[in-house]
């Protein structure tokens, strides 16, 4: 996938992974694996960016005798997801237009 495009999609992918319930790093990567591959260092950057943008909050909790960070989506994060869905409805219609032209050429 085009690097620029992927970068734009990763933020919303991570937000979706924590949309229904808070999650942690490894779980986020596992949940996204069927759709998009993500390295630990990339995830770190994304989480930092989302936190700076107030789209998620972080809390540290004890888990099996060690510490683990949990990430939870905020209202701003949910708004970002809604914006993304809106933008991409337009992208999908353009895609349909482009592929329809291809079908006409072939026909």
């Amino acid at each position, binding site marked *: 996938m085009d690097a620029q495009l992927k970068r734009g999609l990763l933020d919303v992918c991570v937000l979706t992974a924590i949309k229904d319930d808070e999650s*942690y*790093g*490894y*779980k986020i990567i596992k949940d996204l694996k069927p759709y998009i591959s993500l*390295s*630990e*260092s*990339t995830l*770190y*950057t994304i989480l930092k960016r989302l936190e700076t943008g107030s789209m998620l909050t972080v809390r540290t909790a004890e888990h*099996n005798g*060690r*510490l*683990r*960070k949990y990430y939870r989506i905020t209202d701003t994060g949910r708004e970002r997801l809604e914006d993304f869905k809106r933008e991409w409805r337009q992208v999908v219609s353009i895609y349909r237009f482009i592929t329809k032209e291809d079908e006409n050429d072939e026909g």
Partner: protein
Amino acid sequence: MTKAEFLSLLSEGLSGRMTDREINEHINFYKEAIDDRIEDGISEEDAVLDMGDIDRIIADIAGEPVKAKEKEKKKKKKLKVWETVLLILGSPIWLSLLLSAFAVFIALFAVLWSLVVAIWAVFAAFAGSALGSFAAGTFFIIEGNLPSGLATIAAGAVLGGLSIFTFFASIAFTRAAAWISEKTTNGILSLFRKKEETE
């Protein structure tokens, strides 16, 4: 590679490139990532492998372009220290040389502009004499001395012609002197400006 080895290499790689707090944050992040995988049933070695190439991780975190810039800045800083030391030590020599060079430039400018003043003086002399001759010639004619009068007026005409010629020569010479002065001054100033830019 063990978890401890990985985290140790990571810590070393990031050392000096960010604050200790930031380094600890990254170490804890990767420590958690490895521990979560081990808890999930993955072996320690595979969990560490799953993190990816450590050099790549360090480059992603610390950012290679910034590193290159930092090294350049450091190099420049080091040069500056040496330069400053040499400058101080050599100041009796270069300072007096600089002052001498400056004095020479001032002298040259003075010579150039003195020539300009001289040419204008010549013009003034011709113009003044021309006017004087016209006046004297007219006076002679009024007095009734036609030959002298005409001769003096003729002389005045010649002087007038010379003064007109000298006038244009003075203008041209003044413009040339101004151009030379501007170019030389800009040239000298740009030497200093260039130094500032490289520093």
